[in-house]
């Protein structure tokens, strides 16, 4: 019965409609292919070019005293810079971002919350170079602190904050009201309810959001140019003096016309992609295990 009706239905379709449908769906499929080709292209090309460069020496040497034609030199100083800069950004923006989200979800009332919500939206759209310019104008010019890893951390924190707020806000809203009401009914004060009931329930989702935020800022180059500035030597102190960073290293080595430098750029790019993609994939797997998002 169903066979005959579906046969009839397709029999009634005019050839023109059937062809239009097939062509349109084919074009949509093509769009998927075109969207994914660059991803596959960039990743395979980077792996092909960068894998040969990676070695123990590459990760333990800096660029100090490396001449333009030398084949040695590595990313040690850049990795230290990136770890410190992203670490500073995370330390500043994660607690603050979660606090802002708690404010918006648990205490939201009045015009102040609306203003904060709109500003977080605006912050999401700040171009990374503008965040760099701001910290340059604030920390380097106005405060007279000079270029440093801390300045880079501040710029990255400006970029990371709205992402953390958005993700945490979304997760806090998913926490069922019954959980809060249950705690209140037991006489638990509001702040304890937030700390011991709401936050633990939302923690898996918040962790995912935070990891995606870290992955995003770890690859940022533009703000580093204006705040960490770049350095060929190891600078362990984030509070003072110019520092390098993995993305900045890729940018500088890619700008050189020499193949030796470009090779180092590929090695660093592969390291960077590995870190960022690993963070992203782990974050996505965490989402899958999170009951709230299910």
């Amino acid at each position, binding site marked *: 019965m169903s066979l005959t009706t579906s046969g009839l239905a397709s029999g009634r379709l005019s050839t023109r409609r059937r062809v239009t449908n097939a062509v349109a769906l084919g074009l949509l499929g093509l769009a998927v292919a075109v969207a994914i080709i660059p991803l596959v292209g960039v990743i395979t090309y980077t792996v092909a070019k960068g894998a040969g460069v990676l070695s123990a020496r590459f990760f333990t040497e800096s660029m100090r005293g490396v001449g333009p034609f030398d084949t040695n030199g590595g990313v040690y100083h850049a990795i230290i810079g990136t770890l410190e800069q992203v670490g500073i950004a995370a330390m500043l923006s994660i607690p*603050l971002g979660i606090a802002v989200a708690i*404010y918006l979800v648990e205490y939201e009332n009045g015009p102040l919350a609306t203003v904060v919500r709109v500003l977080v939206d605006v912050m999401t759209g700040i171009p990374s170079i503008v965040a760099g310019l701001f910290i340059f104008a604030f920390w380097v010019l106005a405060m007279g602190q000079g270029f440093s890893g801390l300045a880079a951390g501040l710029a990255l924190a400006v970029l990371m904050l709205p992402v953390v707020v958005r993700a945490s806000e979304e997760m806090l809203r998913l926490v069922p009201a019954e959980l809060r009401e249950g705690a209140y009914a037991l006489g638990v004060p509001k702040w304890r309810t937030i700390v011991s009931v709401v936050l633990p329930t939302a923690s898996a989702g918040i962790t995912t959001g935070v990891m995606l935020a870290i992955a995003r800022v770890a690859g940022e*180059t533009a703000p580093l140019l204006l705040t960490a500035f770049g350095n060929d030597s190891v600078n362990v102190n984030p509070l003072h003096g110019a520092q390098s960073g993995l*993305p900045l290293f890729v940018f500088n080595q890619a700008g050189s016309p020499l193949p030796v430098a470009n090779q180092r750029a590929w090695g660093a790019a592969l390291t960077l992609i590995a870190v960022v993609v690993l963070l992203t994939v782990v974050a996505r797997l965490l989402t899958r295990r999170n009951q709230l998002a299910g």
Partner: protein
Amino acid sequence: LQLSVKQPPDTANAPPRRSNRGDAVARVLFPLAGCIVILVMGSIAALLISRALPAFRSGGVHFFTDKQFFPEEKKNGFGIAALVFGTVTTSVIALLIAVPIALGSALFASEVAPRRVGRAIGSLVDLLAAVPSVVYGLWGVIFLIPHIIPVERSIDSAIGGVFPPLHSRSGAYGRSIFTASVVLAVMVIPIIAALAREVFRQVPRSHREAALALGATRWEMIRLAVLPFGRGGLVGAVMLGLGRALGETIAVAMLIGGSYVINWHVVEPGGATIASNIATKFGEYGPHGREALIATGLVLFAITFAVNLVGRLVVLRSVRQGLGRA
């Protein structure tokens, strides 16, 4: 937890003093966090404006009309006309390339492919967004430019005569506005696609089923039920993609020729955007030039602010309407 649970029942009406103090602190602390956001945004605007003022003043009207941007060499009369042209042109071309691909792949993922496949496509496209822009820049310099030159040459010889933007008068191609736009397109596709999938998810199932029940083909269902419903949200998604393209820095800085010209022949080498210009010139400029760069950054901030705001509003309105209709 045991703290307050142990309170005797007769104090139930008046909450325990101890927790009261904690709540009082919390009621101050969390709004304070919100105020920090306001403070940061306020100081971004204030600082950029105050640092940019000297450059605006010395540039005067020329700041907006002059094409040449040499604030170090020329203390008066440097302008961002060519930079704004480059910024807008690269972003618009990028959108022309990215929007059909992003919407097409989002439609395929949500309306055509089986659920599982659709989700896999979604996360693959999302992964595109995770690749740092400096890596796209590196890939563009080493791989794309050598490969795009012959393509541009053959496009030019095919339609360059009728369509001047794709014609290179010098016969040179490569580090052009067009090449930068192609890489920008790759970078905004995942952003638009992710938002578009979100929009399509809002389309009520009943609309789709109604179209199919009336005998529509799958494409007719998309055209008659899915697209009209999501139109507002899609406009918003494209605006947010535009906001991202306008501010994208490093990949463009690595790929664009870097010259202050307003040139409609977009495949010819040259051109610069506000963001790419800041990245390439910051290191070599002194205090005066850096102030001029901050002034250009303020203009970029204003443009992206406006675009993002409009985008958010459109998305918000369409989601609200969607909920009302559903």
